[in-house]
């Protein structure tokens, strides 16, 4: 306990000294995130310094082993780091699919050489990764993928296409599910490959969403050569890694259900905008809806904490990522609906500047219950895997 208090004090001091002032301001929009990578243009000197300083301590990945550049913190220490960052409103230094998704899978499934090669550049933000999972027409039936990797002796030859690849047009490397055996049930015969997006034969085409933004791409592979050393795990057993990653992704997307750090509560926001009467939000119907939402939001936030604590204590319930994904994304859709109601006619603005952010974010949220496994898929998983209901 004393050590933890000491850790807290030192961390606080270091953060006070190291976190640039502009990295303590709330993010105004997604544009304020730092994604890193070969072609990243820092939006400010502060953003650059903040990433460098945090990466140097391994604190972009606080719990990963120090041998690959991670922070090597215990769970309790990492929690303290999070609390202390929240205390001063410090932004996350690096947003990254490498940190949130690929890294944990590499730590579990990759060879020592692969870990040495890929993990440090995830931690210091040198390489930006994207995820090649979904394919056209596959939809929720992810395992029906048809992108082909042929064994050409020293390399695989990749042909096919992916869809819903987040930021493929901005990423340096891709982690990708490919079919290496067509003569077996669909969940077998899938392998997990890593390759450079500048490889010859890779091309991307952004998909314009109803929100007007294009965070996703279609990605095409035309005779792309991938060295065999870039296969992770066992040939034809990639579905196991895929499932592990999907679980991670769900938990991450489920985090959408949480209110942003330091944000005002929904009800307070409504009261500030709509006005009060006798100390109560003027619109009684909106007040009821806001309180119902905040009750769920708070209970959901506590559920993430509880499940995290239970998992640490080895008491995890299995498909909890499906619960969090399903609940968190539905909650976020409701949150965005309430933002729209509070914003009233102003919220309808669709200008490309920050005035249109509200409605774009509202439209974007409708994908939450589709991406990373639809709400329906999560409900099926809960019904079958947790509740054991018959097929």
């Amino acid at each position, binding site marked *: 306990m004393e050590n933890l208090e000491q850790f807290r004090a030192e961390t606080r001091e270091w953060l006070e000294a190291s976190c640039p002032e502009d990295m303590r301001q709330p993010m105004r929009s997604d544009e304020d995130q730092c994604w890193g990578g070969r072609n990243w243009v820092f939006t400010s000197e502060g953003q650059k310094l903040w990433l460098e300083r945090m990466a140097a301590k391994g604190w972009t990945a606080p719990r990963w082993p120090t041998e690959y550049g991670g922070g090597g913190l215990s769970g309790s220490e990492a929690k303290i780091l999070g609390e202390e960052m929240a205390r001063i409103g410090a932004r996350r230094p690096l947003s990254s699919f490498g940190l949130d998704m690929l890294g944990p899978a590499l730590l579990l499934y990759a060879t020592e050489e692969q870990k040495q090669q890929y993990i440090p550049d995830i931690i210091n933000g040198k390489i930006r990764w994207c995820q090649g999972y979904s394919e056209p027409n596959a939809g929720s039936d992810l395992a029906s993928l048809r992108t082909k990797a042929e064994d050409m002796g020293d390399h695989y030859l990749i042909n096919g296409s992916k869809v819903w690849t987040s930021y493929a047009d901005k990423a340096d490397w891709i982690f990708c599910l490919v079919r290496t055996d067509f003569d077996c049930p669909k969940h077998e015969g899938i392998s997990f490959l890593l390759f450079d997006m500048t490889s010859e034969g890779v091309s991307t085409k952004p998909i314009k969403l109803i929100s007007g933004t294009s965070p996703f791409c279609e990605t095409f592979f035309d005779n792309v050569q991938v060295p065999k050393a870039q296969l992770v795990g066992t040939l034809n057993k990639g579905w196991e890694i895929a499932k592990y990653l999907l679980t991670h992704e769900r938990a991450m997307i489920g985090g959408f259900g949480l209110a942003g750090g330091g944000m005002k509560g929904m009800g307070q926001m409504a009261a500030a905008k709509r006005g009060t009467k006798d100390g109560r939000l003027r619109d009684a119907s909106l007040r009821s809806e806001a309180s119902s939402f905040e009750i769920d939001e708070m209970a959901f936030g506590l559920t993430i904490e509880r499940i995290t604590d239970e998992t640490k204590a080895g008491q995890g319930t299995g498909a909890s990522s499906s619960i969090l994904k399903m609940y968190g994304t539905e909650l976020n*859709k409701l949150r965005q609906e309430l933002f729209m109601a509070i914003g009233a*006619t*102003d919220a309808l603005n669709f200008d490309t500047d920050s*005035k249109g952010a509200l409605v774009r974010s509202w439209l974007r949220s*409708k994908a939450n*219950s589709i991406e990373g496994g639809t*709400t329906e898929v999560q409900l099926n998983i809960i019904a079958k895997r947790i509740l054991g209901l018959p097929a």
Partner: protein
Amino acid sequence: MVMILSEEQQLLKDSAKAFLSESAPISALRAMRDAGEDHMPELWTKMSEMGWPGIVIPDAYSGLEFGYVGAGVVLEEMGRTLALSPFLSSAVVAASLINQLGSEQQKERYLPGIASGELTAVLAADETGYFDLSSIETTASASGDGYVLSGNKRGVIDGHNADLLLVVTGGNDGMSVFAVERGAAGVSCETRLIVDSQCAADITLDNVMVSGDALLGSLGGASEAMEFTIDVAAACSAAEMLGISIETFERTVGYLKEREQFGSKIGTFQGLQHRAAQLFAEIEVSKSAVLAALQALDANSGKRSVLASMAKAKCSKVVRNATEEGVQMHGGIGMTDEFDIGFFMKRAAVCRQAYGDYHFHADRFATLRGY
């Protein structure tokens, strides 16, 4: 009142459907947007040739005197194809207010022009964004034979394209309505693009001088006519939302019948079947809500306001449900701009807010019902 359409009303609905699917399909809206435009003047010309702008206007002022049920069935069809026009704002809402409040001379001055489609007028009432008419701060001061108007109006959809603004003023004397030409000195518009590809205007009136005959009705005497106008706007906007719900639902059910996943049509999954069936029932229920509200307007019955707020509140909820399910059941493709379903969600967002949102009308309903 018998809750079915008369033969004439049904004919109007059928012809509106035929015309709109031909002349204003979704692809027309997409083309307009992609061209950077925010309204469809040619479509309005065609609608005008068919006499639609005169549907609720009395025969005496060159209207068709076809009533609100007639306007509602046309709006329902407009909701199905998302046709953009000043039909609701000018020919229905503004015309109703003028007809309620104006003198014989004023009606003669404005209504025939609105009925022909040559003149478009728009209500400029709200200043809060919440359609909170109790908070109007725009003032009218007597000055010579006329008045000087000052204030700010917010989020007037298509306001920058209208010829005439029906400016509502407030203050201790009660609400008044003035017919102000948009081009009048002191009137300025700041327009902004909104989500359904139209524009909304924030309008500033800076010491705008108007003559005495710009005042519709008496000074401070607009409350009753405004209540009627709110009812018109609520019921007719509900009709448009009904059309959006129906069209979105039909497209979604069509998709359930054709899309395959996990080796089956997704329409075979009972989880989706039950949600679709529930939504169908909700749409059936909102059909009745809309028709009753429109009929009550035509009959000017005592339940008019209750029914109008009921219809707006109900359809706001149902259209939200219909468009959300529409996107969800289409999956990823439903989120792409290339696909049409998102257009319905966007227009629904605008309709839900226009003339008072769910919370506004649920509150008004409760107040009218005495609690």
